[in-house]
């Protein structure tokens, strides 16, 4: 399997008043046309990893890597123009929270069309057609109505799907989905996952699925990276999750209440300082 | 550059509230009225103790001194084209008296009332106007009063076309307004210029009256542009956007004088600036205090700085140029003397007192200077600044301690000032005659009587003497500290000819002005 994305020793540093804070500390992995899950607790650097790949790290932060390549293009040395051209067209990212990630004063349709017209020379009418198709593809029933709605007029689930549509409309080869379902109801969550799943299956897209829900990731992805304090502490095939070695991974798996299991009190995670080393 | 046939003056005329000569009593209006309306007689600019005929060809005074008969020139027309007759004169008097607005007293003091005015001021024939007074006044007094703008002659026929009917009431017994409402902004005169338009605080436009009976005005148009700031006027004058700057302050006036492109004009005016002491205040009622204050004005410094060019030190109440004016300035700045007087009055350490000051120059500057010089004698002066109307309201209600003000003559006769400064027939709070003496609660029965007597002295020289005496008394002993007499100044473009300021506000004629 040819690697779509190669990440080697990725680091993201934030200068702060109390010194330099390293949010991502040497993350390495490769990605083919598969579903890769990244899990970890809040603040473990999942989003920052995704953003570094996109080139969306805040300007004052510093991103370094031994190698950060997408289909042979070295992303770190690429010109800003080239990176802009890649973004949205070949690499796309679904942001964490649809409520804040959609421009509140632009209709959903316009935001989708905007992506399309940025990357392809298409006429207004055609762009609209394709945006409507995309909305339908993400299981939005009344696409032409939703097209003209504003973000505040749709539910969280619909907003998330609109976001997906916006990012997929230009047909990216790599999709980074940053907790695409955390804002959603359990029932809606599954629908969204199904859409992503279909894309990987049918289009051969590479997917990085970021989440803190280990159970969800394990049931959805092919491979899972477990992050802790900016590092990958364990990489494991999803099916092998039950045999995870790292105590952090095991702890995470363990501490969730399970329907039908009677565990009082719940086992809690006993964080060891050496994990962060 | 202003047009060749137009005179543009920068002029602060925010006091204008009406253009009706029977009603207007403001200084700025006086200039407009005197250029646009005719009078029976006008002040003789060559000798301001005399008058010359305007509409009147000649006049006679009966031996008993009660009847004045005016013979009008013939063939004169109003700007409207209507002929000017004695009927118009009589009507003008009638409407002024019946309207009874601010300036009406100038006529009614001769015994005219709404009931008798048609008898006492009437047309004997088309060219003869007869005016009967109630006492044998000095003819100079009567004639001087007739030079006031309230005696301007209006076009009866034209006015009657614009009268508005009103319901008579207790305050106003007549069934029409004698065209007052229309004349506030309208025009019905016969002067060298006609009033084309007045927009409050913006512009007054005069245009040449082609029907004028005398020598026609040289320029086709005169525009007064309201500009409040001296510096603004000067800038506009220097740039040539106005031809005349009328409200220059000393510094700007001096600078204009130095500019080769510009010229200046000046004339002493019948306005005196004074500080008055309310006699209701026991401290200020003491003669020594009053005198001490007269020693505590730094006349020389003020004369050389604050009012340089725009005023002249003058310590008596009759301005120079008026019959009987006293030209003595005995007081000088003398702290030691003042302290001595204060000690005698029982205030060796001074006292605290307030003064209401309107926030315009030069009074504020003078007040501040006075404040500093008073302090040298231990008197603490608190200045209460206020807008004009505000300080005046307080002054009129006799609620002040001290007041710094100016007094411009109501008409060009010594009685105008004598009456206000030395006549106080009833010092009660109600008062019958609220003169300045009354406002300062200065109760002086003898002086009041003397003032009255002067009116009936028909010999001008003797009359002048009485006024001199009055002035001396006031100079020595009165709650009035006279400081200076105003000099009106103007900055002119160099190409202006014939611009002259008169001795009073109703003699600033513009019809002789021309441009090169």
């Amino acid at each position, binding site marked *: 399997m040819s690697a779509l994305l190669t990440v080697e020793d990725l680091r993201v540093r934030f200068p*702060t*008043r*109390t*010194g*330099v*804070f*390293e949010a991502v*500390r040497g993350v390495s992995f490769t990605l083919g046309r598969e579903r890769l899950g990244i899990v970890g607790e809040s*603040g*473990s650097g999942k989003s920052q990893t995704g953003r570094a790949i996109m080139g969306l790290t805040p300007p004052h932060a510093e991103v370094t890597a031994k190698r950060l390549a997408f289909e042979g293009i070295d992303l770190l040395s690429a010109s800003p123009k080239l990176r802009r051209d890649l973004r949205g067209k070949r690499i796309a990212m679904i942001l964490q929270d649809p409520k804040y990630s959609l421009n509140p004063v632009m209709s959903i349709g316009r935001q989708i069309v905007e992506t399309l017209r940025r990357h392809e020379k298409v006429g207004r009418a055609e762009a609209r057609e394709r945006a409507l198709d995309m909305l339908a593809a993400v299981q939005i029933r009344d696409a032409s109505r939703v097209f003209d709605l504003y973000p505040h007029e749709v539910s969280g689930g619909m907003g998330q799907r609109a976001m997906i549509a916006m990012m997929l409309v230009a047909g990216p080869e790599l999709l980074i989905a940053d907790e695409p379902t955390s804002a959603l109801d359990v029932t809606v969550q599954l629908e969204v996952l199904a859409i992503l799943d279909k894309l990987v299956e049918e289009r051969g897209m590479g997917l990085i699925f970021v989440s803190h829900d280990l159970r969800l990731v394990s049931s959805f992805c092919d491979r899972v990276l477990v992050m*802790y*304090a*900016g590092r990958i502490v364990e990489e494991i095939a999803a099916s092998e999750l039950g045999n995870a070695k790292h105590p952090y991974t095991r702890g995470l798996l363990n501490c969730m209440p399970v329907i039908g299991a009677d565990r009082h009190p719940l086992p809690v995670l006993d*964080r060891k300082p050496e994990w*962060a080393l | 550059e202003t047009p060749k046939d137009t005179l543009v003056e920068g002029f602060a005329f925010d006091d204008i509230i009406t253009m009706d000569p029977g009603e207007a009593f403001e200084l700025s209006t006086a200039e407009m009225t005197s250029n646009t309306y005719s009078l029976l007689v006008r002040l003789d600019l060559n000798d301001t103790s005399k008058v010359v005929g305007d509409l009147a060809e000649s006049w006679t005074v009966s031996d008993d001194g009660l009847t004045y008969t005016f013979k009008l020139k013939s063939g004169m027309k109003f700007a409207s084209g209507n002929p000017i007759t004695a009927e118009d004169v009589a009507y003008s008097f009638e409407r002024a008296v019946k309207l009874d607005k601010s300036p009406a007293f100038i006529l009614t003091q001769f015994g005219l009332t709404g009931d008798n005015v048609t008898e006492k001021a009437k047309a004997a024939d088309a060219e003869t106007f007869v005016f009967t007074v109630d006492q044998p006044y000095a003819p100079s007094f009567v004639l001087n009063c007739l030079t006031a703008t309230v005696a301007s002659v209006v076009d009866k026929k034209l006015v009657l076309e614009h009268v508005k009917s009103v319901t008579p009431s207790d305050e106003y017994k007549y069934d029409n307004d004698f065209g007052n409402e229309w004349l506030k902004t309208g025009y019905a005169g016969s002067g060298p210029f006609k009033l084309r338009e007045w927009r409050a605080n913006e512009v007054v436009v005069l245009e040449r009256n082609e029907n004028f009976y005398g020598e026609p005005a040289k320029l086709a148009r005169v525009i007064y542009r309201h500009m409040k*700031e*001296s*510096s603004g006027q*000067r*800038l506009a004058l220097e740039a040539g956007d106005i031809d005349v700057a009328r409200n220059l*302050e000393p*510094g*700007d006036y001096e*600078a204009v004088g130095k500019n080769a492109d510009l010229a200046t004009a000046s004339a002493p005016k019948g306005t005196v600036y004074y500080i008055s002491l309310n006699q209701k205040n026991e401290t200020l009622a003491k003669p020594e205090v009053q005198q001490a204050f007269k020693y505590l004005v*730094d006349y*020389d*410094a*003020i004369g*050389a*700085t*604050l009012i340089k060019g725009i005023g002249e030190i003058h310590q008596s109440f009759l301005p120079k140029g008026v019959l009987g004016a006293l030209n003595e300035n005995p007081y000088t700045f003398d702290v030691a003397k003042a302290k001595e007087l204060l000690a005698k009055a029982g205030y060796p350490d001074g006292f605290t007192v307030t003064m209401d*000051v309107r*926030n*315009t*120059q030069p009074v*504020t*500057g003078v*007040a*501040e*200077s006075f*404040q*500093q010089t008073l*302090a040298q004698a231990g008197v603490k002066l*608190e*200045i*209460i*600044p*206020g*807008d004009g109307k*505000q300080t005046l309201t307080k002054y009129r209600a006799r609620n002040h301690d001290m007041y710094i003000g100016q007094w411009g003559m109501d008409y060009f006769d010594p009685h105008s000032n004598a009456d206000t400064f030395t006549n106080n027939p009833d010092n009660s709070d109600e008062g019958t005659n609220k003169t300045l003496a009354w406002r300062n609660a200065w109760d002086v029965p003898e002086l009041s009587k003397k003032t009255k007597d002067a009116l009936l002295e028909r010999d001008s020289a003797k009359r002048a003497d009485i006024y001199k005496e009055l002035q001396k008394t006031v100079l020595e002993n009165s709650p009035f500290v006279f400081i200076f007499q105003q000099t009106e100044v103007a900055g002119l473009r160099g190409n202006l000819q014939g611009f002259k300021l008169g001795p009073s506000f109703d003699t600033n004629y513009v019809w002789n002005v021309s441009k090169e």
Partner: protein
Amino acid sequence: MSLATETRPTTRREWLLSDRPQSRTQARLGRAYMTWRRFSANRLAVLGLCILLALVFVAIFADALAPHSPVIGNLAGARLLPPGSEGYLLGTDDQGRDILSRLIHGSRLTLLVVLLVAIIAAPVGLIVGAVAGYAGGWVDAVLMRITDIFLAFPKLVLALAFVAALGPGIENAVIAIAITSWPPYARIARAETLTVRNSDYIAAVRLMGASPLRIVFRHVMPMCMSSLIVRVTLDMAGIILTAAGLGFLGLGAQPPLPEWGAMIASGRRFILDQWWVATMPGIAILIVSLGFNLLGDGLRDALDPRESGQ
């Protein structure tokens, strides 16, 4: 899990910056210190603060600093001298008074005006706005109507009218300016209140059984404070200018008080030839209001809840 590579701080700093304060004082000081650090990192803001400290210093020691009397001049001998004349660094005015000395003494008036206005207007606005916003309903309607009326009223007219009614004098000018400047504060406070009013922490306090008054005063108002403080410091410049405007129109401080606006007003007559008479106080006002503005800007950044909430 945060891994900060950090140079070893001095102990006092460490104490102040401690994540785990041991006492109320330490917590409060720590917070103040953090704010101060954010503030002092902003050079312009520090400049603003320095200007104001200098102003306070000058005001306190005016008597010692001023070379001449601010009120007694030499009309005959030293009138309208240009800057740099002997003994008169900034020249003299039309009464022959030393402009520098007048500026120095005038700083007291300026301080007095801004402090009094801030003390009157800000709390009035804060209370009105917070009460209106929290109470809602007709209380809100009535209070905001009154606020709107005052907002809709031409400001300078209102101030002029009040000065006229109360009589001139610096105190009355202060009251007049305060009366015209509280409505915007009320609006800010109300807007802020509306955002916190439905928050969970206010609900929590309500659930404790706190009375509405207690909630407004102890819980809501502190939330409005920082935006209000910022706004007030920014408005200080405007207040000085309004006071100057009143002085310019001849109302405000009584002569011969060296109020800066009145100084400009009386100096403007000489602007063409003796430029310094009006320019010096103009520059003084400019510098001080610049100081307040810089301070306000700095405070805005320093008190920004987004940053302190990290």
